């Protein structure tokens, strides 16, 4: 067997076997990975919608809404919003009232902000009683005309939250994402 043929045969064999092994592996791991992602998502949906409601998935114009109903009355919508933070993509699940005027609650699904600063948007270990105080501020927050933030002061309006000291950009990014994308979602659902 000449050398060129050997090279081709050996490399082909290695890659084919490798591909085969990975394909078999994928059939085992894929369902588990997908199940985990769905679990995270449905846990987040449950957290941002009122308790004891029926949740139905509604697809509209590339957006997925989780419509919550109680006694056949719509009591809220949940949907995913995302955008750039200080150094990472921020993904949030947000629940709003049926008229999109008030946030029921919002939860961060993923973020990789600066450890110890930007990560306080999800978990502020310096605040021992309420490490999630930042996202808690969005509970029952009005979004009309727009959410605003203040620094180093207690919020004074029902559309206002307090930004995290040292992580203003991350805080502002969340406010910005929610302001813009709740409006977009409202337009989509009312179409």
């Amino acid at each position: 067997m000449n050398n060129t043929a050997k090279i081709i045969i050996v490399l082909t064999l290695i890659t084919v076997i490798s591909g085969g092994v990975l394909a078999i592996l994928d059939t085992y791991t894929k369902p588990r990975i997908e199940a985990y992602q769905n679990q995270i998502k449905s846990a987040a949906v449950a957290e941002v919608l009122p308790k004891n409601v029926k949740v139905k998935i509604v697809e509209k114009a590339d957006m997925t809404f989780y419509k919550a109903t109680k006694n056949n009355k719509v009591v809220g919508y949940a949907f995913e919003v995302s955008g750039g933070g200080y150094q990472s993509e921020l993904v949030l699940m947000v629940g709003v009232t049926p008229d999109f005027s008030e946030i029921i609650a919002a939860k961060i699904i993923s973020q990789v902000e600066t450890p110890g600063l930007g990560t306080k948007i999800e978990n502020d270990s310096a605040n021992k009683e309420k490490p999630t105080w930042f996202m808690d501020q969005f509970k029952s927050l009005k979004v009309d005309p727009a959410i605003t933030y203040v620094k180093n002061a207690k919020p004074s309006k029902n559309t206002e939250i307090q930004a995290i000291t040292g992580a203003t950009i991350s805080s502002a990014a969340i406010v910005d994402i929610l302001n813009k994308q709740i409006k977009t979602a409202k337009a989509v659902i009312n179409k």
Partner: protein
Amino acid sequence: MKDKPAIQEFIKGLWDENPVLVQLLGLCPTLAVTSTAENGLAMGLAATFVLICSSFLVSMFRKVIPGQVRIAAYIVIIATFVTIADRFLAAFVPDISKSLGPFIPLIIVNCMILGRQEAFASKNGIGRSLLDALGMGVGFTLTLLVLSAIREILGAGTLFGMKIMWESFAEWGVMSQAPGAFITLGCLIAGANWINKRRKA
């Protein structure tokens, strides 16, 4: 090399030829993911798994793989095991998989692993190659564990997520970020060199 006792191939990776402290290989994951002991350990074990499996196959087929395409062949073999490790972590320990992020796929280009294939597994029998891979892997894992433990204790006051520092301890924020990785690794390498110099003298 053949006249050395086989166990020597294992022991050398722990200290004398430690991949991180002496050979300075595989520094990218060493610096990037060692902010917590859990991540450091997971990265070390994942790299060790890939190294052992790749060394085994490369050593087994070392006479079949043509010299001109050996690097390509090694990379495919390594990439296969990295993908196995990556999918496995994502399916069974999703939290660790999430915090290691892209650094698991990047084990493919970890020069410690390719380096062992080229320098050792392609020239030695299966038994010695496995011992060599195991030694290098354990050396790599232990170094990452020490590095990440120091960083987690000083940077977050915890070890494996458990609080171990006193209540009023102020966390050194810099330790959990990139500069902390460089500072700690620099101190470790300096310490290893100092010990080695004194041992020789």
